[in-house]
């Protein structure tokens, strides 16, 4: 059994290591032998070149002064001039700090929701009812933010259902949507409303993978149900929780364009300007300086990558599988 992989290993080893003529010929022969594979690669290769790598090359505009007539490649270089302008723009720094604030809040308020939900669903004993509520909980995930925002706006507007009930109970009308202070809470609530059910699936399947003997032993030892949750279920899904937590940290610079763009309105647009909204505004609304907005875009992409790589590294150090290889 150990024989075949060994020989194949040495074979491919010689192909790669020897940079001499015979090595090159072997590669060419191998390429010719696999020509059909390369044909199959063509559609995806065209796509990745045109719509992934060519735009990446376009990021050079961050260091150029964009001239419409010269295009991306012909525009003159300008060094770090764009970045000097970006770093002087207070709106830029505001959007960065707002993005980080919103996402830190998400880690605190949104992240635990699916864990709690999964723990609760797991303990619920009514099988049929459980299936029904899970079906309902998961559904909003598949709706667009435009739909979700429309539904929630209808519900929370001044003449919406919630305010009707409040006034019927003798309370005052609350302006949920036009209040800057309520905007970030509104983001978290809508996050949970839309996504908690779907995200809880991953924890539920982690729970279903727990060795049942542990529960039985605990039961024999007289552990209460509560103790079983705290001392068996929770520790067993902790690896899943920590990996997802780290991965969420990797997205600290992305605050969800569709959600915020559709939930904001004239009254809350000041607090809603996260990095993605800022990039959209400077690029597609008002006067456009593509060099400037590409500079911001590149900044965002680089930091996104750094956060993701750090998150991945940490996850691997903690014994997780990591997202990439």
């Amino acid at each position, binding site marked *: 059994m150990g024989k075949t992989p060994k020989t194949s290993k040495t074979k491919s080893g010689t192909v790669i290591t020897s940079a001499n003529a015979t090595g090159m010929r072997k590669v060419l022969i191998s390429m010719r032998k696999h020509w*059909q594979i390369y044909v199959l690669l063509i559609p995806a290769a065209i796509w*990745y070149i045109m*719509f992934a790598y060519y735009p990446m090359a*376009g990021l050079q505009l961050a260091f150029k002064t964009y001239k419409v007539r010269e295009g991306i490649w012909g525009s003159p270089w300008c060094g770090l001039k764009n970045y000097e302008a970006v770093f002087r723009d207070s709106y830029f720094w505001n959007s960065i700090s707002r993005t980080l604030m919103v996402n830190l809040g998400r880690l605190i308020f949104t992240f635990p929701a699916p864990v709690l939900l999964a723990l609760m669903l797991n303990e619920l004993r009514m099988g049929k009812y459980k299936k029904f509520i899970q079906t*309902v909980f998961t559904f909003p995930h598949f709706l667009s933010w435009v*739909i979700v925002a429309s539904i929630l706006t209808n519900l929370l507007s001044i003449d919406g*259902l919630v305010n009707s009930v409040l006034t019927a109970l003798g309370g005052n009308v609350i302006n949920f949507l036009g209040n800057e202070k309520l905007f970030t809470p509104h983001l978290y609530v809508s996050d949970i409303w839309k996504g908690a059910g779907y995200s809880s699936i991953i924890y539920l399947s982690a729970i279903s993978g727990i060795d049942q003997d542990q529960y039985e032993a605990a039961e024999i030892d007289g552990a209460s*149900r509560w103790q079983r949750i705290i001392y068996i279920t929770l520790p067993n899904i902790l690896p899943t929780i920590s990996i997802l937590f780290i991965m969420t940290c990797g997205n600290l610079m992305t605050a969800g364009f569709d959600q915020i763009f559709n939930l904001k309105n004239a009254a809350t647009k000041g607090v809603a300007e996260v990095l993605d909204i800022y990039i959209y505004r400077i690029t597609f609304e008002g006067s456009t300086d593509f060099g400037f907005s590409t500079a911001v*875009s590149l900044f965002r992409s680089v930091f996104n990558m750094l956060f993701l790589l750090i998150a991945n590294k940490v996850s691997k150090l903690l014994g997780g599988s990591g997202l990439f290889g």
Partner: protein
Amino acid sequence: MSATTKMKKRKRESFGVMDAVLFILLTLFLLCILIPFLNVIAISFTSYKEYMQSTWVIWPKEPTLAAYQELLNDGRILIGYKTTITYVLIGVPINLVMCTTLAYALFRKGWPGRKLVLTLVMFTMIFNGGIVPMYLVMKSLGLTNTIWAVILAQGMNTFNMILIYNYFNSLPEALVESANLDGASEWTILVRIVLPLSKPILATVVLFVMVQLWNEYFMSMIFLRSKEWQSLQQVLRSIVMDSQVVDTAAQLADIGDRNFTDGIKMAAVMVTMVPIMCVYPFLQKYFTKGIMIGAVK
């Protein structure tokens, strides 16, 4: 064995305080999700007169299709449907071809450059140019204001490709190897052997892409600024946003009975949402698997 005895034991345990608390909490969350939907449905079928008497609509006394009629008369929703259905009809096959061919090529080991291709593909998952260069590329290709900008930008999804790739890797290797030794071409192996065995994952990806394209909003907003082509989500947003303006104007001028804006808005939400509801039972059958494979990677 141990699982079944445990189940029996659990069933024998009485319905305690904890069960009651769980039941109440979960039911509360259930209501938080259900009531907004019921409210949307109710308002879309309510007449303006009834709505004015009380905005607290649980279910209309005299259901009416007036709001839907008004929505159709407005006509924008039809443009939305036309555009989004075109996305799905063209985009799903493109995605499927791109993902399966790439996944298959990566799945077949031993060809020079495989590692490099895999690295280049994975790299796009952590780094991308962002929307600004993408816009300039589409502009230089002359694709802005055509649906092709959106369809091509959404033509490939690396995450879906990895789902398929992982599934291919789980297939018995002997099947492919023996076909290879029999001299079958790669194309034959892919179409005759691998794809027929991969129906579950292909169904999953088709459903994912359908939902993704149905919900397409961002790219459409950036690339489609014509009156002729507008994605459904764009149309929905413009209806919801525009009628907010109309709403206040109508209230000020007290001519609200001309058209019932809240009703039209909710009818538009319904019309956009119902197709997803129809696909949902199928989605539900597959998405757990999808998340799991995605999580393993």
